[in-house]
């Protein structure tokens, strides 16, 4: 479980996060939603230590990550997998080498064992025969799936996904959503997904956190969203005519 307590962060005297406290439960898909610039990505980066919060603490299984030294954080980060918005695959490495990378850094596996793990991860994200291709030679959707494969290579306890569906067609986006949900349940991972894709919210939103102007404005599950009378949440989720019709029908 990941616990955030009173997280605040400002940039150039502009308060981006205001006293945020939230728990991410194990084996659940936690979605952080909000409009662009609401602070979702900053909150995630504070959680994994890519940005230091001005105030507040982040706890991984009860251990204060914010107060840890470099070596302590390194140990926690070995248990974190992260899927970045653009995939963030290493351009100079093949797909296979990208997935082997964390294994080479942090495991004592032999080449054979690493190759087996790479193939397992690629199969898990439904990719085959692309081991020798470079990231530039595969599609955006495939890059995202390779990103997931790399993120789960070291069997992480925590999976962070930053806008996993951005730039993808609706079919591939649903495929990625389902993959994240399946992997979360299968490996009992604590998953945190940052998104403003409302299809994702309605597909996989077991625990939804709505950030508005740097604060948690609403928290619940996808089933509660339809019944919610939170105006700002409704404005975000039911912005399109299609979603408005869906809401009316329900």
């Amino acid at each position: 479980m990941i616990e955030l307590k009173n997280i605040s962060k400002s940039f150039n005297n502009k308060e981006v996060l205001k006293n945020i406290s939230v728990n991410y439960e194990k084996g659940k898909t936690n979605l952080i939603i909000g409009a662009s610039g609401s602070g979702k990505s900053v909150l995630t980066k504070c959680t994994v230590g890519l940005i230091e919060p001005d105030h507040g603490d982040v706890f991984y299984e009860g251990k204060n990550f914010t107060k840890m030294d470099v070596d302590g954080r390194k140990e926690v980060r070995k248990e974190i997998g992260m899927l970045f918005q653009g995939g963030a695959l290493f351009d100079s490495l093949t797909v296979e080498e990208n997935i082997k990378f964390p294994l080479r850094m942090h495991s004592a596996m032999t080449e054979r064992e690493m190759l087996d793990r790479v193939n397992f991860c690629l199969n898990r994200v439904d990719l085959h025969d692309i081991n020798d291709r470079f990231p530039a030679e595969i599609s955006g959707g495939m890059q995202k799936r390779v990103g997931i494969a790399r993120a789960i290579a070291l069997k992480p306890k925590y999976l962070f996904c930053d806008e996993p569906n951005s730039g993808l067609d609706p079919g591939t986006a649903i495929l990625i959503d389902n993959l994240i949900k399946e992997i979360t349940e299968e490996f009992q991972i604590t998953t945190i997904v940052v998104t403003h894709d409302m299809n994702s919210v309605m597909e996989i939103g077991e625990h939804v956190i709505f950030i508005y102007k740097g604060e948690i404005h609403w928290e619940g599950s996808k089933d509660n969203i339809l019944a919610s009378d939170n105006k700002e949440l409704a404005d975000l989720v039911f912005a399109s005519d299609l979603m408005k019709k869906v809401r009316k029908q329900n």
Partner: protein
Amino acid sequence: MGFFYSIGEYFILMGRTFQKPTNFALYRRQIIHEIDSLGLGSFGIITIISVFMGAVISLQTASNIDSALIPAYTVGYTARQSMILEFSPTIIALILAGKVGSNIASEIGTMRVSEQIDALEIMGINSASYLIVPKIIAAVFINPFLVVWSMFIGIFGGYMVAFLSGVVTTEEYIYGIQYDFKVFGIYYALIKTLFFAFIITSIPSYYGYYVKGGALEVGAASTKGVVNSSIVILIVNYILTQLLLI
């Protein structure tokens, strides 16, 4: 104020860069890759530039000798001294600052804006160390070889001038390049090369590592990396010359 902030940030980055590596086996692979990319990839351009520098120095020296009191072998002597003391270590360093420096700043800058550096950090890897140390080690290792090659091929360029144009006989040229030779000149050049190799790799790495924004900012970081590393090379060249030769 920004100037002092940048200097402080540069030294903090260097502090992070030289922390204990996460997995040295991976660094070894990277170092070999960088030697090939940064060093051997510059071999062709260094050869072309050096041979013409040596040739032009010989031609200019020959054309400026008016007095009969100045011996003809001065052409060879001047070509050797110019190549060993200044042209090979310093001018080649400036050329490498342009070629290698822009490459390093744009490579690391692109990794920053495409979140590849964040991905390294998330994997528990010291990204500064993993990305910068192999480049510094590779340049410090390979640049002395490039500079010695530049000296040799530059002096050969002068010989070709003597052979083809006849401004000085080849015998006189060879006598000139052997005249009053001091090995310390080579040591001096190689000491400078080690400092320049560090500058050429670390300063562009700094500009690439802290880039914010997109493609435009990566280009700007690349330019800053080249310009500032060139200026630092010239300043360090002056300081080292004062310390080692005077």
